[in-house]
Every structure is written in structure tokens, then in C-alpha cells.
């Protein structure tokens, strides 16, 4: 892991956990070109659906909230009038809710059928609070080191759960607004103005968050610009993985370079040499998909995690 020991001021902290014992160190070039599969195909499709429906919803919803603006009036009339805009908005909402169901089924399948506990790494723990604090102190120059993240950093966890919160709030209130008469069949009448307030205010919060945090961390940050493609390709270079998710990277490293077959993939006869078909550049076989780390059997529900592996959920400061 020489490549990670380069004298870089901000990376010094990151390099140490990666120096986990390795029996056969990889040549430098290979490490540099190794990638980790961070998102499987379902997750990539889910993100594309979420992203596209979110953009359409924002572009058709905000003009309704800010109907006083000449820009909104122009945009609505350009799209063909309010009724058209409303149906576009509702269709995109349907896509987003379907995407949410898709994700829930996917989670159910991963955890219930495949018995993988990987998704549970998304559950926040006390370490995330410590990480927030340490990040702030690091930003201010007080703490010399950044926190070492596991599979998901606190920001990624926040983003993920914020979508759940947002879908529940905006989707629920949106259905009330779409069927106001039916909603008053089982809700008090004042639920409708409340739903309107929730729907529009929560939407502004979501759009604001995406515009500030997501645009910066996925696009505008100088170390990301122009964009972070991993949610579309599923892959993250080993170098970046080691820097951004050192705890998980250490776990990947300690499992050695020859993982067992991954769920849903055909086992590769020569794991080290096998490159996936779409890879033009020579890469090592993807060595990690969420929750499937190395040759050891995946932790099963109801069983203690293997001792070598850090606890799945937080706790490992």
C-alpha cells in the first residue's frame, strides 16, 4: 500500500488503517487500478429513478408554490397550463413512490432472502455523532485527523434517511392533496391545508439540501468536479475508497484479494485476473459488494458477526 503512504498532509491519517497486514502486497500499479464495486445494479437504477423523478418534481412543483413569480407563470404556460403541469408532477411522484417501493422490496430481498446484513450499516450509531464532531473540529483545525468512515459516512446516512423522511412527508401529503375529498373520508378537513404546508415546505427543504450539499459533494467540490460517477458505474477506485471509507477498506484488504462468488454473479475461475466484460482498462475483479466481504460467509441474521469483522453498526471508533 505504498501508494497510500505518499506524503500528503490530509491523507496521513487515512493511510494507517489501510496498512493492515497483507500477505501478498499488490504491485503499485494494480492497486491504483483496482476498484471496488460499491453499488449493485439495483442501487444504480434506484438512484437514476430517484434523481430523474426528483428533478421533474422540483421543476413542476416549485412553480406551483411560487405562482406569483412571472417566471413560474411563463414556465407553466410553456408546459401547457397548470393542469398539464399537475399531471406531470403526479406522474413523477408516482415514479418516485414506485422507486421507494422498489428499494423496500430490494432491502427485503437482501436481508430476508439472501440473509445479508450489509444494509444495516446504514443505521446510524454513536460513532456518527462523534464523526460529526470530529469533522467539525478538523475543519476548524483543532483535530488533526478526519474521522475514519466505515461503509457509509454520516452525511451519506443523513442523505439516505432524509429520503425516507421526505418520501413519507411529501409523498403522504401529496396523496392527500391529490385526493382531497377521499382524504376527508378518514381525516379531519384541516388535514388538507396541513398537507399543503407540509408538502411545499418539505419540498423546499429537500431542494435546498440537494442544491447545497449534494451539488457540492457530488459535483462542485474541487476534489470531485465535475462529478462523482460511482452511483452510475457502481465502481470506486481503490485509492479513493481507501481515503473515503478507510474502515471498510481495511476490512476488504484484510480479506485478501481472492473473494468468493458474489450473489447474483457467476463465480470467476481466476478472481485475480478476471476483469468484468465492460472493463476496458485492466482492473482487478471487484472485490466488494455491500455486505459481501471476502471469502468468509456473509453474516446471517441471528448469528454473531465473525470475530475478525468489526461490528456492522457503528461502534468502531
Amino acid at each position, binding site marked *: 500500500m505504498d501508494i497510500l503512504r*505518499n*506524503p*500528503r*498532509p*490530509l*491523507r496521513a491519517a487515512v493511510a494507517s488503517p489501510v496498512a493492515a497486514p497483507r500477505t501478498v502486497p499488490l504491485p503499485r500499479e494494480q492497486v491504483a487500478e483496482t476498484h471496488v464495486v*460499491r453499488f449493485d445494479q439495483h442501487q444504480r437504477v434506484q438512484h437514476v429513478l430517484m434523481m430523474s423523478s426528483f428533478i421533474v418534481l422540483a421543476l413542476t412543483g416549485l*412553480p*406551483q408554490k411560487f*405562482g406569483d413569480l412571472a417566471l*413560474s*407563470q411563463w414556465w*407553466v*404556460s410553456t408546459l401547457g*397550463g*397548470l393542469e398539464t403541469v399537475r399531471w406531470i408532477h403526479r406522474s413523477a411522484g408516482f415514479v418516485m413512490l414506485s422507486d421507494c417501493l422498489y428499494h423496500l422490496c430490494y432491502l427485503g430481498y437482501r436481508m430476508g432472502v439472501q440473509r445479508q446484513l450489509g444494509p444495516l450499516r446504514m443505521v446510524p450509531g454513536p460513532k456518527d455523532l462523534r464523526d460529526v464532531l470530529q*469533522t*467539525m473540529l*478538523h*475543519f*476548524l*483545525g483543532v483535530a488533526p485527523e*478526519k474521522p475514519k*468512515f466505515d461503509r457509509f*459516512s454520516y*452525511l*451519506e446516512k*443523513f*442523505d439516505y434517511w432524509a429520503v425516507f423522511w421526505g418520501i413519507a412527508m411529501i409523498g403522504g401529503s401529496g396523496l392527500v*392533496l391529490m385526493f*382531497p*375529498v377521499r382524504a*376527508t373520508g378518514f381525516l*379531519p*378537513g*384541516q388535514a*388538507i*391545508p*396541513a398537507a*399543503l*404546508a*407540509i408538502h411545499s*415546505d418539505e419540498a423546499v*427543504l429537500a431542494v*435546498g*439540501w440537494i442544491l*447545497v*450539499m*449534494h451539488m*457540492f*459533494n*457530488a459535483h462542485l*467540490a*474541487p*476534489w*470531485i468536479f465535475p462529478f462523482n460517477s*460511482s452511483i452510475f458505474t457502481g465502481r470506486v477506485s481503490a485509492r*479513493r475508497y481507501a481515503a*473515503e*471509507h478507510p474502515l471498510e477498506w481495511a476490512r476488504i484488504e484484510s480479506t485478501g484479494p481472492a473473494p468468493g462468488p458474489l450473489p447474483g454473479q457467476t463465480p470467476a475461475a481466476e478472481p485475480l485476473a478476471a476483469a468484468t466484460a465492460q472493463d476496458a482498462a485492466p482492473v482487478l475483479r471487484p472485490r466488494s459488494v455491500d455486505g459481501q466481504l471476502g471469502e468468509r460467509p456473509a453474516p446471517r441474521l441471528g448469528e454473531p458477526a465473525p470475530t475478525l469483522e468489526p461490528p456492522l453498526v457503528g461502534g468502531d471508533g
Partner: protein
Amino acid sequence: MRRSSPCRCDPFARRGQARNRNAGQGFRWHWVTSALVALAVASVAGLSRAAAAPPGPVAEDRPPNGLCLLCHSQPGLTARTGEGQERPITAVDPAAFDASAHGREGCVDCHADQAALPHPALASQTRAGAIRATACKECHAEANEGYLDSVHGTLVKLSDARAPACVDCHGDAHTIQPLRDWKEQERAGICAGCHPGAGTRFLEALSHEAPSPDLLPSAYFAERFLVILTALVLAFAVIHVELDLLRWLVARWTARSGEMSHGHSPEPPSAAGGGS
């Protein structure tokens, strides 16, 4: 309130008989003569000054309702529009008007631009424009604001053809009854005109007043909560991004000042990973 007779020529032509007649020959009935006499008398009392004055509070100078009602209590009268069409004028039942919630108002309190005779033609307006120009808001300003803030107001602002005007729900302003005199069933019936199946519980769905802890508490507290949440979350986001960027700049500057012997230093990763 819809002004139905934008009339540029002869406002006193009787429907049917006026069709084959020149515009200038309509003054052949005894009540029309009476109207002209009354007009002459009224002009002595200052009607002409009132007509010339800009619309607004006309307290003393406004023409008495009886003058307007000389014509506007006669169902079946038509007026000719600027385009030459015959259109029925708005006919008001004086007894019903007196008994209405507006019974003490003067005609020109609402129809300020119709004080002059002959009446000025109304500019052709889109429906949404007509709704915004409504006279109701002169007295019911707060209700009008609440209306524009509601879902119905969104329809108005974005020029939707289905936007309900005041009178669509509240009824004709000349016969309108105070809200307290309405039965809930009657009110729900009006909602059901556009929202089939609306029951009395649907009535709470729309208010012309801003939510408060007493009125629509759920909407009030939901809004308060979300405003605070939005402020906190976005403040966190902005501060986080700014500090992240600042830390990167500092590190970059530090690295550059010390890198003369080291060569280029690659970029540091984001503090929180790139997936956010």
C-alpha cells in the same frame, strides 16, 4: 361580481325590440323618460362631479341606489356592447338586495367604475384577470389574501380556467347571506359542485384566514416546525460545505508552500466521502 354589460352605445334598449332599431332611437318607454328626468335631477345633486371623479370613496357624492335600480331592476333589458352584441344587463331584485348582507352598501361602492353614464365599456379581460380585479377585496382584503394563498389562489395565479371566483362559492353578491346563516350542508353542497362527494368535513379544508393555533392548528404547527427544520438543516449544510472548502484551501495552500521539494500533491478527498 360580474359586470355583464360592457356597453358602449345604447344601454337602454329593450331586448327583442331593440334588435332592428338604430342605436340612437331607444328612448321610447315611459320608464326611460323617468330615468332621464332622474338623471337630470341627480346631476344637479352632483352626479356629474361624481362621475368625473376617480373611483374611490364617494360617500356623499355617490348616486343613490334607486337611480341605478331604475334600469338594473328590470329583468329582460339588454345593452349593446362595443362589438354590437345585445347582452342582458344585470338585474337586481331590490328587495332581495336590501335583505342581503350587502343591503346597506351603495351600488358604486363596488361598481366604482360604473358611476358614469353612459357606462364605460369594460376592457375585455381574462377570467383570472377579472377575478383579481374583483371589487370584493376592497372590503374583504384579508379574505382575499387568504384566498390567493390557498390552492384556489394557485389556480388564479397560474391562469387555470377552473379558478373559482368569489361568487362561484359565495353566491351572487346582491343576494349574499352572512356566513353564519348558512347551513353546513348548504356550504358542503357548494364545494361538491367542483369536488364531487365533498361532505361537511371538507369545509375545514379551505380557509381564507392564515392558520393560527386556534384556526387550523395542524397546518400552523406543521408550518412552524418545517420552517425551523429547514433553517437548521440548510444552515448545517451551508456551514459544512463552507468549512469543507475552506479546510481544503488551507491544506492546499500549506501543501503548496511546502511542496517545493516534494512535487505535486494530489487532491485530498472530501471529508465525508463523495457519495453525499
